């Protein structure tokens, strides 16, 4: 027998203990006299239990994810690697020499990512300028302090409308990356990549660069190479990477070559 929405609402109020003592007693008496209502109550109890178990599972999974993130070795944070142009060039030369001597086929994705992080630190460094006037500034502040967990919590607490903006997404992706939560970092950087590039925003380009690092960390070498998308015609390729400076183009080209060797 199909019950009315009103009846289901009464059952809901009863199960959520929103009835007064008298109402609840009257409801129970009605249930005893009405087999259809009793059956519906039994069914709704299963629904409540289902939702309860599911939400408890979510908490359990969140705690386990936090355990996993806490066990990951800390990677070198971006902020510490924000260096001058000259230093970046020097490190690039060392990095290229290391790959040359070491044989890139021996490098893991994590090692390649570490080297790439050094080259791209200045690009991805979210240096805070000005006062903490906006939510984005505050998020940048946490990243500057290397307070990765606080940054992600701050992002999660933002209203949906702010969370959906490209720059907070990119910053949150960086914070997740720093905590080795690559799935979260990946999904956010993908979303940030989809933002329209403007004259003043390099967010999609930076998000793409972060995604390359994530793919290296996950040993997804073919996908990383495809995303770098190196093409011999320099201008065409450079247009896809408008946030990079000259030295970083060289580093990206070298990374592409190393990935080609690895994929052979």
């Amino acid at each position, binding site marked *: 027998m199909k019950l009315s*929405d009103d009846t289901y609402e009464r059952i809901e109020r009863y199960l959520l203990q929103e009835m007064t003592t008298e109402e609840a007693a009257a409801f129970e008496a009605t249930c005893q006299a009405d087999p259809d209502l009793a059956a519906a109550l039994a069914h709704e*109890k299963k629904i409540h239990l289902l939702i309860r178990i*599911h939400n408890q*599972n979510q908490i359990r999974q*969140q705690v386990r994810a*936090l355990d996993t993130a806490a066990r990951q070795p800390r990677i070198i944070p971006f902020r510490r690697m924000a260096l001058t142009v000259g230093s970046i060039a020097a490190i690039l030369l060392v990095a290229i020499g290391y790959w040359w001597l070491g044989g890139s086929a021996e490098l893991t994705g994590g090692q390649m990512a570490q080297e790439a992080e050094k080259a791209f630190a200045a690009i991805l460094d979210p240096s805070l300028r000005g006062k903490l006037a906006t939510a984005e500034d505050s998020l940048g502040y946490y990243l500057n302090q290397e307070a990765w967990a606080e940054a992600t*919590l701050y992002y999660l*607490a933002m209203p949906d409308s702010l969370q959906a903006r490209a720059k907070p997404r990119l910053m949150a992706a960086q914070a997740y990356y720093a905590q080795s939560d690559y799935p979260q970092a990946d999904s956010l950087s993908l979303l940030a990549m989809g933002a329209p590039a403007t004259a003043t925003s390099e967010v999609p380009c930076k998000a793409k660069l972060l995604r390359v690092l994530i793919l290296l960390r996950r040993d997804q070498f073919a996908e990383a190479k495809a995303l770098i998308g190196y093409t011999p015609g320099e201008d065409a390729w450079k247009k896809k990477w408008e946030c990079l400076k000259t030295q970083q183009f060289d580093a990206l080209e070298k990374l592409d070559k190393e990935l080609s060797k690895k994929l052979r």
Partner: protein
Amino acid sequence: MSLPQDPELVRMILSGGKGLNKAVALMHQHLKSMVHQHITHNSGRAEDADDIFAESMVALVQNVLDGKFRGESSIRTYLKSIAHHKWLNRLRAKRPTVAFEDHMAELEDPAFADMEDLPSDERLAQLVDGLMQQIDPQCNKFFHLRYWCKQRMEQVAVNMGFKNAQIAKNKHQKCLKKLRELLDGNENLKDILGGMVA
């Protein structure tokens, strides 16, 4: 970020959604080591400590949502007591007669004797989550706020950005109809839940 005061933590848990996630993350950050130490100092391994902490967090959140946490002790002490109770149960299941240190006996609070112990069965979790994944995320949010966090429909409407409670209620009813259909189509899960409810 430091751990908020207890009233703020309780408010965050009751708010559900992001507030709840934030509270869980903060409690993990600040309270995990305390539980870990308690378990490993009482013949537990690190894996035991991880399990017990996860189950204790579930129980803590559930008790706050059910109104069972009345603030008579701090959340820190409450969580430790829950963890202790769960660890005792696990030890007793392994070794029915075991002598405990005096300090452990002190923490054995009769208030936890009837604490809900829903099974953390992996298979059941997969069945439940598998079914709930077929539900629209907005519906899942409804169920989370209304049924689990026990928020009134007026508050749910505000949290979910609906114009008023009636519109939220109508959408909620549609979500429930879908969930009932899905459960009706899964005899196995319906039987398991029926056995737990009875």
